[in-house]
């Protein structure tokens, strides 16, 4: 970063954020562009996004980025004007350029060397140059032939002293020249520049000597200077016939550039035009670039990571609510101090008002943290395109439910597991077109993303219509890896769950996309770390569906308080199916399998919480206590508790912060009376409960319960 201006640097975080947004727009729009090549609106959006990045980068002195983006912008401009046709390879090029800019922006603290840009820069210029030809050459065939032949010219351009007074701007001509090809080097001729006290700002005293690599002929170059040629010295000469090979490579350029470039560096081009504004698009560019810092102060100047943009009206509403809460509070105080007979009634009313306000406030504060899942889904089309192309598969992506909102913290953390699942779906799930045709399917595979709310959870599905999971093969692999023994009896569902086991892959060969067998276990771990769960549902030959279930937020939980002995525990409400006091005939004790409770024909393992947690002062007679049936991923167990206390929303506090993870608990909370309550981890209780009931051997699902 060349700018030392602290005022500007303060907004650097904003720039980073905005650049990221613009880059995302670019990427998305480029993918759309492939489908709808002529869409003017898309092209406008693309151009504006590139333009904003350019402006921002220039403001912060990130010259390599702004220059590169300028070239990107030129090409987009050409696209917009219909001078260049949208092709798959062009979109590829643009996408790669977007990636490069993204890398450069995210790592702008240590700028990339300009050489990192050269290759793509050249490619961009070539794409642009190829198109410039089209209008001037009526026959497409010679145009194409000519387009491939790039030649270097030396252009020496010394405008006359009076060009400004004639209303001409030399920079305009240089810019037009730049549009014809790649300017490989620029040298500034300031031999006519006099002493400062003799300087006349209205006189042009500078000259340029540059090397242009272009597919255009010499005549076309001369044409560029038509209006100014009379009053200028102009030399245009082919530089090097040999270097005009069709392949362009960074290394080839460096010698040529070095030879033609004296001390002056490239960025000089825009500077030596005092008082004259560059014409056309770049005028908009600089105006926008200057405006940027001015519009930024409204937003919080923050670190590149960890800031939220919040709509002003949301903040206003919060302010209102807080104001009301303060009034509420003084009402409570007044009512509590009052001696009048109706004080109690007033107090109750004030408290209930306060309750409502508090809940409202909580919801609104939480909604600030909620962002639509499209933030994650938006990255997927690109992924699908790239992965499918790399694997030679034809895949179409269908997305729904992208407006589903999720806690911001979750969004950030769910992105990687999602990426992995999508890659997997394309790599392992969807077959090649030939295989698909052989299997009687359409050659084009489908990957479907879905997000929706279900009973307080957010469900995200990644579904493909590919070949599904071959449970026999998984089983064989698992046995070979020693994960299970040959005698282990497992249901289809359980075998499918094995794909989450570390070291197991179903891919026949390891590709660079996936198949190393690391990953699915990481996916599962990452999702579990978010209090979520992932399940798999696959049908051989029909496809696979991965279902991620996540809590709405990491911080708050709807819970049912239950008492065991003298301790209060909280059960997540979403996991509770029902609670009952079983009659004696509903209870069974099976040798070696522990206790079962029979509910509507289902025999469910029963876990005595007091036994599991070694609580001595609890009810041990099932007839005196209550059994709460809880469910996790379609497995149910009964938990024996003393009594139900009631439902409440609790704020989840970590046990690990000051203590450590405790088996069977997912956290703690502060209850209404100020005491610590412990939140039960239904998932681990079910796991241990079910395996305990079966003698430690895997688990069964509800559908396949034993009798």
């Amino acid at each position, binding site marked *: 970063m060349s700018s030392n201006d602290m005022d500007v640097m303060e907004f650097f975080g904003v720039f980073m954020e905005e650049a990221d947004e613009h880059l995302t727009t670019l990427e998305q729009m480029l993918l759309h562009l492939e489908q709808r090549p002529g869409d003017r609106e898309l092209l406008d959006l693309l151009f504006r996004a590139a333009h904003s990045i350019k402006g921002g980068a220039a403001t912060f002195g990130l010259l390599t980025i702004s220059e590169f983006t300028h070239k990107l912008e030129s090409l987009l401009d050409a696209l917009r004007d219909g001078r260049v046709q949208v092709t798959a390879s062009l979109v590829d090029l643009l996408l790669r350029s977007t990636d490069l800019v993204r890398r450069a922006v995210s790592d702008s603290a240590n700028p990339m060397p300009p050489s990192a840009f050269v290759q793509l820069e050249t490619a961009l210029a070539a794409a642009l140059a190829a198109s410039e030809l089209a209008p001037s050459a009526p026959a497409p065939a010679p145009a194409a032939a000519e387009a491939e032949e790039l030649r270097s010219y030396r252009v020496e351009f010394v405008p006359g002293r009076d060009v400004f007074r004639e209303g001409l701007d030399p920079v305009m001509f240089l810019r037009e020249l730049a549009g014809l090809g790649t300017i490989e080097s620029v040298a500034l001729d300031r031999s006519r520049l006099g002493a400062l006290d003799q300087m006349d700002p209205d006189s042009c005293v500078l000259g340029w000597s540059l090397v242009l690599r272009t597919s255009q002929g010499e005549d076309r170059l001369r044409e560029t200077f038509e209006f100014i040629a009379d009053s200028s010295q102009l030399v245009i000469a082919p530089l090097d016939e040999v270097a005009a090979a069709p392949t362009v490579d960074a290394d080839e350029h460096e010698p040529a550039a070095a030879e033609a470039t004296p001390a002056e560096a490239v960025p000089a081009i825009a500077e030596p035009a005092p008082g004259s504004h560059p014409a056309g698009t770049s005028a908009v560019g600089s105006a926008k670039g200057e405006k940027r810092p001015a519009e930024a102060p409204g937003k919080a100047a923050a670190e590149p990571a960890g800031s939220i943009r919040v709509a002003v009206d949301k903040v206003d509403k919060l302010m209102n609510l807080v104001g009301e809460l303060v009034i509420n509070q003084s009402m409570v105080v007044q009512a509590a101090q009052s001696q009048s007979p109706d004080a109690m009634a007033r107090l109750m009313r004030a408290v209930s008002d306060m309750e409502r306000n508090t809940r409202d406030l909580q919801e609104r504060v939480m909604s600030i943290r909620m962002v639509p899942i499209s933030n994650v889904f938006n990255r997927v089309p690109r992924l699908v395109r790239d992965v499918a192309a790399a694997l030679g598969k034809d895949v179409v992506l269908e997305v729904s439910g992208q407006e589903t909102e999720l806690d911001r913290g979750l969004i950030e953390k769910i992105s990687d597991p999602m990426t992995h699942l999508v890659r997997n779906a394309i790599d392992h799930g969807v077959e090649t077109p030939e295989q698909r045709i052989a299997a009687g399917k359409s050659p084009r595979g489908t990957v479907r993303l879905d997000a929706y709310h279900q009973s307080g959870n957010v469900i995200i599905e990644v579904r493909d219509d590919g070949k599904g999971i071959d449970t026999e093969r998984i089983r064989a692999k698992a046995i070979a890896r020693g994960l299970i023994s040959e005698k282990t009896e497992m249901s289809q569902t359980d075998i499918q769950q094995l794909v989450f086991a570390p070291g197991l892959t179903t891919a026949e060969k390891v590709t660079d996309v996936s198949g190393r067998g690391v990953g699915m276990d990481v996916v599962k771990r990452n999702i579990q770390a978010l209090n979520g769960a992932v399940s798999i549902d696959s049908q051989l030959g029909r496809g696979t569906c991965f279902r991620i279930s996540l809590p709405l937020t990491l911080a708050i939980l709807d819970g049912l308080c239950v008492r065991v002995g003298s*301790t*209060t525990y909280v059960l997540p409400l979403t996991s509770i199916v029902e609670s009952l006091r079983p009659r004696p005939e509903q209870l069974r004790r099976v040798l070696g399998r522990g206790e079962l409770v029979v509910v509507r024909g289902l025999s469910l393992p029963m876990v005595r919480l007091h036994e*599991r*947690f*070694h*609580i001595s002062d609890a009810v041990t007679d099932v007839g005196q206590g209550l059994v709460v049936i809880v469910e996790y991923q379609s497995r149910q167990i009964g938990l024996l508790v003393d009594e139900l206390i009631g439902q409440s929303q609790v704020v989840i*506090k*970590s*046990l690990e*912060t*000051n*203590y*450590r993870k*405790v*088996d*069977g*608990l997912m956290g*703690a*909370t*502060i209850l209404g009376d*100020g*005491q*610590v*309550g*412990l939140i039960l981890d239904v998932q681990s209780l079910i796991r241990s409960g079910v395996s305990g009931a079966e003698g430690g051997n895997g688990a069964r699902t509800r559908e396949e319960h034993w009798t």
Partner: protein
Amino acid sequence: MTASVSPAMAGAKGAAQDRQYLSFVLSSEEYAVDILRVHEIRGYSAVTPIPNAPAQVRGMMNLRGTVIPVIDLRARFGMEGAENTKFSVIIVVSVGARVLGMVVDAVSDVFDLTAQAFEPPPELGGAVDTSFMTGIAKLGERLIVLLDIDRAVGVEDLSTLGEPSAASA
């Protein structure tokens, strides 16, 4: 102090001196911790027991919205359990990044440790674990054990608290 003091011991001694210590009583013995590690002293209030926790973890308490574990130092040092009295207090200390409470019988006072009063941990042979002591302070007739709080209720210790060997320590 003595010629046999090892360099490491001398370092520990240097670190242990010229500081203020908070002394407290555990089963009629006096102990002390570096006062800079003490956040606050609270009256004993009910804690929520943790399932399957070792004996020295009494449970969790609410420290103004933060859930912290409460360690029973008597159990930690293998002393006879005692009923809580009205003098029982919880000393809230920081150990590494964690905050936790220690139940003690009573707090006594805050004293300055001088070089003259400091003695290195006694050699009691392998049978007695002195690793959680940094030394002994001699204040007149009183002998006060200076606790190395990181070792006494340390992080590594907490992470192994669930294991039987640590639980019976």
